[in-house]
């Protein structure tokens, strides 16, 4: 188990399908749920996290708002391509507080993790933190 922010472990968000300079994708991996990345309209939305090296993962926690369906993919390549499906999850709507979902990854390592938000409970969604448990 670890609670260090992903960014301090050398992880980076290398792709994000929306950008608002006030809410950059780096906010997803800074470990702080007060800062967030926000989608700017339409679905699907996605972001890809790259780890500094192949990382063993047992599960993830995703803190978000208004996400309705989340799909997670991973790869072991240095390129952000050729992903394999890992899991998908329906997320309940929460009123006035963040959604906190844990996603089991069944072990195995990854260099990239790809998160696809196929649909939301509203026009816009936000992602506040992604944390990993090793």
């Amino acid at each position: 188990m670890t609670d260090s922010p992903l960014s301090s472990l050398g992880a980076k968000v290398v792709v994000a399908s929306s950008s608002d300079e006030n809410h950059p994708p780096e906010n997803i991996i800074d470990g702080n749920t007060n800062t967030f990345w926000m989608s700017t309209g339409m679905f699907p939305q996605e972001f890809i996290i790259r780890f500094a090296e192949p990382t063993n993962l047992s599960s993830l926690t995703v803190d978000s708002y208004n996400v309705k369906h989340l799909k997670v993919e991973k790869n072991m390549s240095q390129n952000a391509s050729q992903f394999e499906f890992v899991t998908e999850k329906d997320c309940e709507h929460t009123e006035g507080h963040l959604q906190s979902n844990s996603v089991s990854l069944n072990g195995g390592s990854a260099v990239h993790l790809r998160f696809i938000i196929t649909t939301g409970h509203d026009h816009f969604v936000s992602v506040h933190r992604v944390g990993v448990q090793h």
Partner: protein
Amino acid sequence: MVKLRARCLLVGDAAVGKSALSHVFHSDGTLFQKNYSMTTGVELLLKCVNIPETNDSVELYIIDSAGKETLVEACEKMWGEPSLLCLVFDLTSEQSFANCSRWMERVRAHSRGLHVPGVLVGNKSDLSPRREVEASVAQEWAQSQGLEYHETSAREMENCDAPLLSLARAFQSLYRERQEAIQNLSPG
């Protein structure tokens, strides 16, 4: 600075001028299609609207969908989940205005209970001698549906920017509103 993206549904009866309007939108008021050719499916047009006095812009993915009754059902499958609505009628056709409530029902069925900001557009304002729908009546109905009302002439390229700008502004203010709500959330 932010670039928003919105799926904008363009609907209304056949021959009210949806495609003509969308081509005027798309060409920034330089192109009016003189020859009528009925849209039988769905046409996608991409138009970026800058919101004046801000650095924000909205990319509109305009879904121009056939208005002819027999084609509607097939087209509805391609509507997806709309972010914005542009409902058009012909100012010289009372019937096309009366049918607007049917169009609203159809759009609502696709919006999953979400609020979809929109505009009502009375087109063909250049044909004033043949006008059948009074501005005040259209305005009142628009208001009752939460739509902003505009009159345009695609042929004269008159006022065609107004509905787009109004849609872009509505989407931007929805975004700002949601952003503020998210900022005030408590942790999960």
